[in-house]
């Protein structure tokens, strides 16, 4: 569940996470969607970040289908599958979407691409959801399976931590190492990598 803005961001600067995304962060997000797409042999992948000022989700990186025109597109954060994932903080897999006329219409209007299957996981760091990582039309072997949902969730958490580090930098790092937020983040990254290795071993 989302209540707060990006950590370390002053209230007046919380209107848009987009403004805080420099070239390096954009490259990071693009890398994340490229890897997510590769892991699941998917037709497309995308990252949507929350804009709290407008209650919208914004496409910030896209790989594959829609790459040319989706970045920057916005839609209401409380609606659709990505909206539910962002609001609930839960990952979700849905399949058989092409025979779902309601989904086709809504999605086609905004993205011009109608997937048959969609996996979505929150970009969650601590108790904060920063956005949503979506994978569209993963390979059939990677669909509708709980271990794959676990893998996507774990990868999304890793990406969220990296995003957090990229956006917030290391303001206020203590010289003596005490209460060092960067150290905490490095520790979390290490833990997530360890979790990912264990999960991949189990697959």
């Amino acid at each position, binding site marked *: *569940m989302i*209540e707060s803005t990006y950590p370390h961001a002053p209230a007046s600067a919380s209107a848009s996470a987009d403004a805080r995304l420099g070239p390096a962060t954009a490259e990071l997000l693009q890398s994340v969607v490229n890897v997510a797409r590769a892991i699941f042999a998917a037709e497309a992948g995308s990252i949507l970040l929350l804009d*709290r000022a407008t209650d919208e989700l914004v496409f910030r990186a896209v790989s594959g289908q829609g790459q040319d025109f989706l970045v920057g597109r916005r839609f209401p954060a409380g609606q659709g599958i990505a909206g539910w994932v962002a609001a609930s903080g*839960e990952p*979700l897999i*849905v*399949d058989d979407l092409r025979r779902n006329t309601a989904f086709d219409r809504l999605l086609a209007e905004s993205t011009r691409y109608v997937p048959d299957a969609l996996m979505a996981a929150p970009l969650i760091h601590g108790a904060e959801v920063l956005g949503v990582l979506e994978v569209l039309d993963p390979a059939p072997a990677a669909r*509708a399976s*709980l271990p794959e949902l676990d893998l996507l969730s774990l990868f999304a958490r890793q990406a969220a931590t990296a995003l957090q580090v990229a956006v917030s930098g290391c303001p206020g790092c203590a010289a003596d190492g005490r209460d060092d937020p960067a150290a905490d983040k490095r520790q979390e990254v290490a833990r997530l990598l360890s979790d990912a290795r264990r999960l991949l071993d189990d697959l």
Partner: protein
Amino acid sequence: MTTAATTASRGLTWGLRGRTPADLPVHADVGPPPAPPTPSGTSAAGVAGLVGGTGRGVRVCVVDSGVEGEHPGVGPVDGSWAVVKDEAGVRVTESAAADSCGHGTACAGIIRRIAPDCELHSVRVLGERFSGSGEMLLTGLRWAVEQGFDVVNLSLSTTKNRFAEELHALADAAYFGRTVIVASAHNAQVESFPWRFASVISVGSHQETDPDLYLYNPQPPVEFFAHGQNVEVAWIGGTSIRTSGNSFATPFVAGMCARILSSHPRMTTFQLKSVLYLSAANVRVSDLPQQPSPREGTIP
């Protein structure tokens, strides 16, 4: 056996001063027949008789993204409300039977399949707007408990610690008030609430294909596992899709609760949990010698 408090005992809170057992009658429903023996011991499935209802007379509330009205996979929605947030604050108001994404409709359809004759109600806590979703979840759940619904399906949780204490108190109030909260464990290994509380029935997904199989977890806090992988569910637009997640295992157990309560309406929440435990496919009453618990032998 199922029980119900009598009018005479309603004032009882802290002690039994001045009251005798005769002052505390508790009326119970007739229990199930003895369980038949099986090669591996006595099957706990003897409690199956307790699970035989259809949900008739039981009021179930889905706290989620709303439920689409007149969906062929859901049937009648007996009441639709929504949590709204405006200048006046956060409040619950009557609304159209609509769903902002399909998730609540999916949960309602599963409950309808398991307990076809139950009353289905919806309170939408997601979809109005994004901000303040934890507050809206708490408001919607509190409202459902105050309305006295028999079963509340909550395929949601919050990761916000600041809501934990209030949710805990609410879950306990529901438990004693005989509103059963059936709550999804988080899909990821994330700390969230209220599924962590013992006063709710928490549910995760198993990976089996049998849609009616449910299991008890010998190592809680997630207490039960039900079908949550590749589940065919109702979705918006009168359609259906396949999906996976704890969200869709939870309404199966909520539906089971409705069935049990429809045949044994005086059952308390702790009895309900016992019936689910005893009727889980992996629970057997065996003749194996009991292992001493770590605390045994310490009392003279």
